[in-house]
């Protein structure tokens, strides 16, 4: 029998908002150091030019675009968990969705930096928007890159709105539980006067349901559009209709893995959360990883099959190059991480083993970064004309910027867990049996 009550949920959340301890400060120090490396490297690149980024001719897209697609993928799981699993009433959603939503917002914030870093002249980033940049020349509406600008900015706006909307009742709970006047003042403003009246709940819940209904197709559209950045070109390895569903499955795969990477330490950091974020909730995530991992494996094999079956020489050459060319180590490591490492999750004992889940989630994250690297770099390195074939050489600047992006992402997450409720208080209460006199 669970000991969770309305009051215990409030207490656990309030406990997580207490002033941070030594471990938190040390971790934040490490995170800020990583961020510092990234900021330094980006400044260096701005001062010395894009030659420090590792991109060359013909590999015009390198680690930055890989990072962009990786972080957008991570950002997928939050909205999937909040919206899609809300609509289908998945029971394991309630305890983990708040942290996943926060993860989405911070991941999309991180992803949004990479096109700006990639363009080199970051100060001209607004040329991406519908703005007549030179000689009154408007942007090209037929380009999937422009669709991506709309998709990513819409996704970010909706994710932020969804996140803030979900937070309002919980901030009101925190406000009412605060002893300090200053904190109470802060949370009063943040909760915009929410007091749980029937009028507030009625419109709030209807709005929330609509948000979920609208956000669901958005989850699928955003990564489909990201995939069209590649698929609408004629480069071998990119020009394929399987890309949209393949990218969506991959994004859910990596996003769910990142949810585990974040939730497992969160559960350890706040012991009260162990009763709320149950092993069966993590198991639900593991099942999602297993399913999407199989979809990703299927997509990999279909790509190879179609390259063979189509008889297209350039496709065949590219798909020979990926596993047996100079970049083969990246390919085989990707296959191990994405296709093999998740297979032990078929066994319930492993699905419910927390250290194993954490380890697998890290492997999947690594694998999904490598998948994007394989897609972006190998196709460009080995396209139609052998004269133009090239190799990719990593530069320290792009590696440091990638490390810095993790620092940026985790910095926001660390701040979030200390100032905002990282559990969805109202929804957790809604999932409990209400206190009834007549059932006693």
């Amino acid at each position, binding site marked *: 029998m669970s000991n969770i*009550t*309305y*009051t215990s949920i*409030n207490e656990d959340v309030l406990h997580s908002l207490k002033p941070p301890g030594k471990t938190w400060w040390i971790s934040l120090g490490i995170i800020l150091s990583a961020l510092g490396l990234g900021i330094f490297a980006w400044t260096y690149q701005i001062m010395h030019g894009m030659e420090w980024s590792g991109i060359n001719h013909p590999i015009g897209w390198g680690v930055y675009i890989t990072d962009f697609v990786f972080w957008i993928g991570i950002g997928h799981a939050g909205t999937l968990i909040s919206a899609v699993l809300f609509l289908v009433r998945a029971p394991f959603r309630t305890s983990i969705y708040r942290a996943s939503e926060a993860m989405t917002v911070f991941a999309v914030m991180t992803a949004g930096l990479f096109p700006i870093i990639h363009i080199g002249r970051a100060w001209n980033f607004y040329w991406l928007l*519908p703005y*007549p940049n030179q000689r*009154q*020349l*408007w*942007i*090209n*509406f*037929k380009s999937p890159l*422009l*669709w991506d600008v*709309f*998709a990513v900015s*819409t996704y970010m*706006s*909706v994710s932020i*709105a969804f996140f803030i*909307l979900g937070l309002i*009742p919980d901030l*009101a*709970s925190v*406000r*009412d*539980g605060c002893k300090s006047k200053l904190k109470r003042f802060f949370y009063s403003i943040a909760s915009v006067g*929410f*007091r*749980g*009246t*029937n*009028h*507030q*709940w*009625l*419109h*709030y*819940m*209807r*709005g929330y349901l*609509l*948000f979920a209904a*609208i956000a669901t*197709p*958005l989850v699928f*559209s955003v990564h489909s*559009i990201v995939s*069209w950045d590649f698929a609408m070109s004629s480069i071998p390895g990119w020009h394929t209709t399987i890309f949209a569903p393949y990218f969506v499955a991959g994004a859910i795969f990596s996003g769910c893995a990142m949810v585990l990477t974040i939730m497992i330490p969160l559960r350890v950091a706040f012991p009260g959360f162990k009763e709320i974020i149950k092993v069966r909730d993590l198991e639900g995530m593991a099942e999602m990883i297993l399913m999407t991992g199989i979809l990703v494996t299927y997509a990999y094999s279909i790509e190879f099959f179609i390259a063979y079956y189509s008889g297209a020489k350039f496709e065949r050459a590219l798909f020979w190059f990926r596993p047996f060319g100079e970049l083969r180590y990246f390919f085989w490591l990707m296959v191990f991480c994405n296709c093999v490492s998740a297979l032990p999750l078929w066994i319930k004992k492993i699905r419910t083993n927390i250290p194993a889940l954490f380890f697998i989630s890290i492997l999947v994250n690594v694998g999904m970064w490598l998948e994007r690297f394989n897609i972006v770099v190998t196709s460009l390195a080995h396209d139609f004309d052998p004269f133009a074939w090239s190799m990719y050489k990593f530069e320290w600047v792009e590696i440091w910027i990638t490390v810095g992006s993790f620092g940026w992402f985790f910095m926001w997450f660390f701040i979030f867990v200390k100032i905002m409720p990282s559990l969805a208080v*109202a*929804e957790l*209460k*809604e999932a409990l049996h*209400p*206190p*009834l*006199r*007549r*059932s006693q």
Partner: protein
Amino acid sequence: MKKEFSGVWATFEFLDDMCFSIKEIRKQGIEKITTHTPCPRHEIEHALGNPQSRVPFFTLFGMFVGIGIGILLIITMTLDWILPVSGKPVVSVPVMGPILFELGVIMAIYCTVLGMVLLILRDTKKHSFPTSDKYKNYDRFMNDRFGVVVPCSKNEVDKVVEIFKKYQAEEVNREA
């Protein structure tokens, strides 16, 4: 100017007590009831007669506005500087799809938020609330207590208090 409040508010530990009391108060012909709960509960909606929200109309309106803006944006900008691409029509409908979808979604979301805020403000304005500090500072509604506010005339107060007591309200406060 502050609205004068005349009526009763009570707090409950148990949800079913509160629902029974609401039903009985509504039988007395009092409909303008406000409840406080830590989380949304369908039992209360049923007790209050299943009121409906009009937020979806705002969402639908926003979706149409977004799609309309998208069509205008693409057509005017494309025609302002003709940029032929691969022999495709200058104004091409299929390529509008992703942008219309994204703009439709974003405007629908903004209008949903706007609709929620406006409707909550309208309902809050329509109902009167106790003005005492005790009510304003009561901090368990978002924690673990259920509350009911019933604005009523002075001669109805006793009847309402009696109903609350019958269903074992934890606290009953008269304000007139």
